[in-house]
């Protein structure tokens, strides 16, 4: 397993760390404004010639579609990037048709491989189901031969996955198909929105919002909105135990992967293990 640093902005890249790891995933799963540009990639390459640069592209709204397409074309034309990760079928479809024989590897992102087991309380939702259904519901959505064929025919060579103890069983089957598996070691995506929650919270808009999301907000559940009570109630002890703290970066809500160390012990299964530098920094700083 090669360790990749997940960094949203080029200026946040820690060159010392990158020298040690040699591999960076730049961009964001939710925000189009965090896509890097040609000049930034060239500058990064000038600083670290041998760095492996991967780009994570976000979900893309109609209003940003043309901007995302143009930026994607520009990034591919640099011939300096190793891979593009897609979190939007539309942008993927565009890339497949526009750049069918690209030298750049295409990966599926976590928003396209989202599985039921990504839910922090999936075991509770599954509680009364038969064992076979539990296995089914804890599997990876990607683990389906027809889907894998479709994606391979589109030029996909790997996939980012949220992996934990709940779903690790199904991982072998995906690696056996020849797809590269990219695992996010310290985070799982809880939800994505089109609303940038951090920008909304701080009442800013792009480009002023940039500083707000350099550090994720941390959310701890205090009151539940209950449809049964038609209002706010205190969460029960059991709910408090199963709802994790959330880390909000822009329009994506993450929570910490509880099985980080467990994954490190299975690193031979993964092509890349990604460390989200935002969340890592936040946890290191307490």
């Amino acid at each position, binding site marked *: 397993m090669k360790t990749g640093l997940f960094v949203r902005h080029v200026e946040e890249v820690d060159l010392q760390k990158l020298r040690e790891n040699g591999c960076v995933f730049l961009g964001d799963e939710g925000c189009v404004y965090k896509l890097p540009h040609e000049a930034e990639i060239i500058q990064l390459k000038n600083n670290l010639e041998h760095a492996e640069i991967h780009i994570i592209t976000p979900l893309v709204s109609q209003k940003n579609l043309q901007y995302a397409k143009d930026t994607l074309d520009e990034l591919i034309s640099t011939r300096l990037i190793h891979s593009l990760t897609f979190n939007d079928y*539309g942008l993927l479809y565009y890339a497949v048709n526009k750049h069918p024989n690209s030298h750049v590897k295409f990966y599926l992102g976590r928003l396209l491989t989202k599985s039921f087991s990504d839910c922090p309380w999936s075991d509770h939702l599954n509680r*009364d189901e038969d064992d076979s259904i539990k296995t089914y519901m804890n599997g990876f959505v*990607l683990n389906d031969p*027809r889907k894998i064929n479709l994606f391979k025919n589109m030029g996909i060579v790997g996939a980012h996955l949220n992996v934990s103890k709940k779903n690790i069983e199904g991982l072998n089957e995906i690696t056996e198909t020849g797809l590269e598996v990219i695992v996010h070691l310290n985070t799982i995506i809880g939800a994505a929105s*089109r609303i940038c929650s951090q920008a909304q919270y701080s009442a800013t808009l792009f480009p002023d919002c940039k500083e707000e999301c350099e550090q994720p907000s941390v*959310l701890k559940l205090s009151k539940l909105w*209950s*449809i*049964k009570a038609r209002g706010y109630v205190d969460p029960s002890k059991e709910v408090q135990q199963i709802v994790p703290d959330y880390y909000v970066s822009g329009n994506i809500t993450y929570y910490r992967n509880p099985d980080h160390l467990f994954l490190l012990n299975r690193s031979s299964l993964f092509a890349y293990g990604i460390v989200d530098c935002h969340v890592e920094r936040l946890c290191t700083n307490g």
Partner: protein
Amino acid sequence: MKVKAPVISLDSARNMLEAGAGEIYLGASYGAFKNISYSARGNSNVFHPQITMDKNELKETVDLAHQNSASVSFLANLPQFSLPSKERDGMERNFLDYIQMGLQCGIDNVVLADLGQYLLLREKNIDIPCYVSVYLATINAEQVRFFRDLGFKRVTLEYHMLTEEIKEICQVEGIEIEVFANFGGSFLNGRCSLYHNLGESLDLGFPCKSKYDVITQGSVEKDFPYYDSNLYCSLCSVGKLYEMGVATLKITGRETPANVTKIIVRTYAKCINYLENNMDERTARNLAFEESKDFWNKWCSKKRCKYIKNNVTNSYL
């Protein structure tokens, strides 16, 4: 443009059709699941002990819809279709049997949330129009083209859109567009794993309406509804959506009391009816609004309007 209404029983189908629904959507209780169902909800919720139907009730409901010239969308959009090899045959058979049961009852189309489900139906030559569920999170025209080229006949867009974006997406030829009329959470439905309404016994609440202690750069704000950006209503946009060629306005509400959903369906259906009779969009909206004014004022006063510029949509990426 038709109003597409949620149906959880034969009785609710009568109500929705009487209120003016031109399409209904529903799921059946079938197969391997207990709490969960193929319809992307649990088999029950806090208001209803059963929101999916058995085969007999499904057949009666489909017949009733057809007698009222309404079509029936069959929900097979549980956004999970992983097929670990040891479960593969059994789950595929179960899913196909579920679809076959719908076909035997006369359903008009199937709503899917997973490409594997779609590819399986095509491989088995099951000839039924397939619609893309909101769980596939469509927010741009390129994604609509992707689904059209695969063979889907309709796409349901995500809740979080702007009218000018829907207009551009409606330009994609060869596929119908469906949009939501009301409600919806703050997250993209198809990109949210904080599930609820799946027959859970714990009260997990609605994560995007709940309150949190928010910690940002050293400061803490207590009990803040951080994600609460739900938008309620699109009545003021119906005229524009109609003009753009949106095929269906989908009403949510399988977890809403039936009397509330009925008023919502009736108001949107009337508004569309006025537009079909060449009334201008403002008059059509006002007339429909007036007929249940007390009900709608409650929502209107909150100024949480879908599809138009406001504090929430200004934060759209």
